[in-house]
């Protein structure tokens, strides 16, 4: 089988991570921010898989499973928060939510 240069896999992960970061920085809709966070987590998992494939170890896949668990828990809590915020403020604009006082 032909080989893939490892940096191409890592560059793909880096590009996806930066695109997710760009989404987090620019979007004002809180649901889009959460989706961009998912893209970033996924890019981190891709980097782990590339590294585990390079050395032929299964450890990277175990770390990917941990990231998957983290993403699932994070999305559940985040979406619950979004529903609660929408119920109280009737908006998904994070600039309005920045005026919250604790």
């Amino acid at each position, binding site marked *: 089988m032909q080989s893939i240069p490892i940096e191409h896999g890592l560059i793909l992960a880096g590009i996806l991570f930066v695109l997710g970061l760009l989404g987090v920085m620019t979007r004002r809709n809180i649901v889009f921010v959460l989706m961009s966070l998912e893209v970033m987590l996924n890019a981190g998992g891709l980097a782990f898989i590339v590294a585990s494939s390079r050395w032929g170890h299964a450890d990277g896949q175990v770390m990917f499973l941990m990231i998957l668990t*983290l993403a699932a828990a994070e999305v559940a809590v985040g979406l*619950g928060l979004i529903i609660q915020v929408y119920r109280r403020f009737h908006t*998904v604009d994070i600039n309005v939510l920045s005026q919250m006082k604790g």
Partner: protein
Amino acid sequence: MILLFYIAGAVAIISTVCVILQSNITHALIYLILSLLAVAVVFYVLGATFAAVLEAIVYAGAIMVLFLFVIMMLNLGKRSEDQERSWSGVKVWVAPSVMAAILLAQLLNVLSQYEYDLIPKEVSVLEVSALLFGPYVLAVELASILLLAGLVSAYHLAKK
């Protein structure tokens, strides 16, 4: 197989760009699912078949259905799409894009020093699960506690 890696990578990048540029939230979600499936194909090419299956089932299946469910509950509609369009002018994009480009350039600079070749070798489910229930058993327990905490807090937060 090598060609498949580059095609899937290109699909992933293009659909992720569509996610962050899209103003219709449901379309953005569909593009995100496409991006995750493309990444699953990349995993398969790299020999991580178990991770590829999990990516398709858990990420593109379960988590995205959760997103879709919440979008349906919020019922944002046409008004939010217009609002979204008014928020995303060129002015908003300039500074974050420049900063993200600098970050990416640094990353590429570091990565260009490596010259390893990667020969995709299949890592079986057996090896992964032997690790999961061997040295990583504490991490699995912690992950289950994390999921339980997520379940309880999501129930509490979404309650009326």
